[in-house]
């Protein structure tokens, strides 16, 4: 689009990197706030990701809270029926997988599913619409799909990770948690000469299990990020094609609709699975 678009001589690679640039704000060492000169600064904030993430989260909360406040058992409105379908879907997913009692997991799963879905769905808004409008308004960068920002996906998976550790300790105790990290998959010998080998076995187990534990949040976030980032990139590439983008864009959007829903579902389902594994007593 930019190839023939109204913003003059911008090469394809400039167009792509412009689209992949977050709107950032940070404080320099001299103590002043600057925009978009924050590469590598760990104290920077991606304002666009944060804004869209919060906006979509608020949309979820307001819509669902509106339905919850006006809920009627006998005469559900059409919107209430829609909300109920989603809630029932999440509830049955949770009940199928998680066999304990927890007041947290079902609302957590609902929030993740709807919120991630909405954030992914921003990918289906044509890639130039919002950035161009923002540019007209004087905002140089605008990345509208929060889940193509690795900070957003990691932020969510870290919350899940903390919950995994919390549930493990709550259900198995601190010793159970340590035991889970050190006594599997090879049980350390407890008698005779084997005792000499026990520390090595434990160390081996610990390395293995730590990696397995840490892989959970990393894979959870990178899966979502990778899928959406790749999808976004392909939309951008298609947008470079000029007028031929239309059929391609449509085809990819249809396909992407599947990814959007599926990735939201996978994020939710894996959260439930990890938490149910954490609270399962062997």
């Amino acid at each position, binding site marked *: 689009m930019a190839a023939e678009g109204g913003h003059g001589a911008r090469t394809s690679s400039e167009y792509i990197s412009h689209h992949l640039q977050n709107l950032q704000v940070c404080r320099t060492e001299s103590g002043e706030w600057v925009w978009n000169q924050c590469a590598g600064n760990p104290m920077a904030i991606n304002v666009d990701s944060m804004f869209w993430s919060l906006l979509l989260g608020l949309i979820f909360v307001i819509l669902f809270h509106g339905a919850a406040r006006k809920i009627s058992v006998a005469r559900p409105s059409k919107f209430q029926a829609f909300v109920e379908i989603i809630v029932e879907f999440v509830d049955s997913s949770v009940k199928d997988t998680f066999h304990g009692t927890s007041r947290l997991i079902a609302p957590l799963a609902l929030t993740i599913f709807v919120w991630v879905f909405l954030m992914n769905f921003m990918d289906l808004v044509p890639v130039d619409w919002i950035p161009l409008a923002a540019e007209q308004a004087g905002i140089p960068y605008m990345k509208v799909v929060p889940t193509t920002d690795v900070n*957003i996906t*990691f*932020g969510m998976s870290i*919350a899940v990770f903390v919950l995994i550790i919390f549930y493990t300790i709550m259900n198995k105790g601190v010793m159970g948690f340590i035991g889970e990290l050190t006594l599997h998959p090879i049980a350390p010998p407890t008698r005779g000469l084997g005792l000499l080998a026990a520390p090595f076995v434990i160390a081996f187990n610990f390395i293995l299990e730590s990696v397995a534990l840490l892989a959970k949040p990393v894979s959870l976030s990178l899966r979502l990020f990778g899928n959406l980032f790749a999808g976004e990139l392909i939309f951008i590439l298609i947008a470079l094609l000029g007028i031929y983008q239309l059929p391609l864009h449509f085809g990819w959007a249809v396909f992407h609709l599947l990814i959007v829903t599926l990735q939201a579902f996978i994020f939710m389902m894996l959260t439930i699975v990890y938490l149910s594994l954490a609270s399962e007593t062997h």
Partner: protein
Amino acid sequence: MDINLTLIGQTIAMIVFVWFCMKFIWPPILGALEERQAQIEEGLAAADKGKESLHRASAEADEIVAEARKQATGILDQAHARANEIVAEGKSDGVKERERQLAAAKAEIEQEANRAREELRGQVSAIAIASAEKILKREIDGKAHDDILGKLAREL
């Protein structure tokens, strides 16, 4: 693509949204769903119960109708029997009455005949006495032969 403060911001936002959902969204919606489930279950049970009681009531009604029909037939039969009885009674009464009147008439006739015969006998004896008086007036004193004549009259 660097990790920065956005991560913490997103984590905080997620905690807030999940907390809000747990507090204000999930319980009322799921509560309503469960309440509706309970109501549907109740409704189905009530419908079953209603069907069963309808079944029972209609069976009872059938029974009552059959009973009433039986009673009606019985009453009809009784009425027929009674009517027949009354007719028969009337007939027999009539016959009896006729016989009674017949007997009464016969008795009256006989009585009448007897009286007539008595009278006739008296008249005959009076005539006999009168004629005998006339005959004997000239010969014998009437009084002397009265007993003979009375005897004669009785014998007649």
